[in-house]
């Protein structure tokens, strides 16, 4: 570090060039950042319908909200996000087999979204369910990640 004055100035110029480059990268990263608008259009609160419409032990698809409304045998509700937790394929519900099977890599889930068959690493994501005056509402703005099914995830009328 005993360089001449010219070497020192040269390094300053190099450093300034580096700063300019870093600024450009920073701005580019912000241009690429997902915009808030894109996130908001992703979901809203979906009014699924009155509680009685859903039989216990049934799975109802809501294609527009990208979820399945599940009424468990004990009458509780959960809403399962339809994306496979492995690589994001849409998981169909197979009524006769009583499970969700991913067409992409054969992951399977039970009616609670628990993994029956890997490669899926964790249970299907949840959307929060609220029941107001006997009407089931599902908040699809944010999917809730979970490792496995727990009783606390179920909403009762």
């Amino acid at each position, binding site marked *: 570090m005993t360089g001449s004055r010219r070497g020192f100035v040269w390094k300053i110029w190099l450093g300034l060039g580096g700063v300019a480059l870093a600024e450009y990268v920073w701005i580019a990263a912000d241009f*690429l950042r997902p915009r808030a608008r894109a996130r908001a259009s992703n979901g809203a609160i979906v009014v699924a319908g009155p509680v009685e419409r859903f039989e216990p032990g049934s799975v109802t698809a809501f*294609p527009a909200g990208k979820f399945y409304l599940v009424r468990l045998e004990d009458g509780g509700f959960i809403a399962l996000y*339809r994306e496979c937790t492995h*690589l*994001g394929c849409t998981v169909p519900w197979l009524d006769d087999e009583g499970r969700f099977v991913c067409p992409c*890599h*054969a992951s399977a889930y039970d009616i609670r979204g628990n993994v029956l068959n890997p490669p899926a690493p964790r249970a299907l994501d949840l959307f929060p369910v609220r029941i107001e005056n006997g009407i089931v509402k599902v908040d699809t703005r944010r999917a809730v990640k979970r490792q496995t099914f727990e009783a606390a995830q179920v909403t009762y009328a």
Partner: protein
Amino acid sequence: MSEKRERGKQTAEAEPAESGERQGVLSGVWHSIFRGPLVPRSDRDRKLIVVQNFLLHFRPVRLPERSLRYTHTWGLGGMSLVLVLLLVATGVLMMFVYQPSPEEAYGSILAMRDEVLFGKLVRNVHHWSANFLVIVALLHLLRVYFTGAFHTPRQFNWIIGVTLLLCILASNFTGYLLPWDQLSYWAITISTSMIGYVPLAGEWLQGVVRGGTDIGSATLITFYTLHTTVVPVTIVVLMAFHFWRVRKARGVIVPRGPDEEPEEYPERVLALPNLLLRELAVALALVAFVLVFSVVFNAPLGNEANPGMSPNPAKAPWYFMGIQELLLHFHPFFAVVLIPLLIAGALLAIPYLRYDSDASGVLLLSHRGRRMAAIAAVTAVVVTPVLIVLDEFWFDAGAWLPGMPSVVSNGLLPTVVLAAALAGFYVALKRRYAASNNEAIQASFVLLLTALAVLTATGVWLRGPGMALVWPWIS
């Protein structure tokens, strides 16, 4: 102006007058553009043409005669350039018709196919050129590796080449989404979901690539911009860099036999006609092949993308099928992040490893090197399918080792075992043949590459609905 330059100018412009033609305004303009002679009559003219033409001056004036042999380079670098030019020519045409929004994209592709003059052919040429480019660039990498053309002074050009290969893959990948059909939508869904397994930054990175949580208009515009500006510009700049480094290394490597010493002053011949006519022949043959292929085979186009229905099976593009096959056997972090990074790292490290000898120019190093490479290839062809079948029907580390997280049982454990097996292969082969480390490293390279080829072939042809193993001829 120096006297020397003055004289050079005189000779260049005096040429047509000597040949007895009238020196009109038009020919004056012509000679202001093309300084060299139009038709070569002597070796001096042939040199002038190469030196004074902007495009041709990228080529040397003279080059070693031995490096001209077609089976030395197979013309693969030049073929890559021709395919890139075809891709630019057809891509620009398609940009006039294509509309990068989820509502319009698929319809604009249909319109291009059905209503635009030669629209279908242009799209086919673009599609097949892109796929051929992946193959040709890969073969080019193999040619360079197996002729040992990565030692000094070509070390860094290997890095540029590998970067170009990655750019080609990026270009193919970003282009895959644009038709917005079921194939592209789900292949990109799967591939971008893989990014989510990058530790710590995965979710953020996936959001950046997709422009949101789902594949939508933000994803399409991002991919379109990358595909039509960022990636092609990078490719063209890097190509120029790549060619320049070839010139600085005094051309492609001069081939020699296993028992020959490198020649200090190999016999040289003029580039025109020896090199340039060969290049022209390869280029024309390739263009003819791509055109005929594109007339006969249409680029695939599925139904319009439907986010509610994943096709079964949903597969990644073929060049990522090796990774997709790994995904069926390893924990995603290992299949998608660690193993590809290790492979890329190994590829970039190749020119900078410490080698016992500099065998550059010798195909497959030596007689022993050839035998060891063959053994490695056969080993991979036998062992990889056996491992795939065993893992499919028998291995179940997760069930055998209950209580162990899947990252360990399905990721770390098999990776360490396989790495140890590779190290064992390296040591055993090196001892058995008393080989140099060049030969043993080459054998390991062949082993890994063949394994990747087998994985890719398995993914492409032997995976059916639900990604179960199937025979392709039984539907």
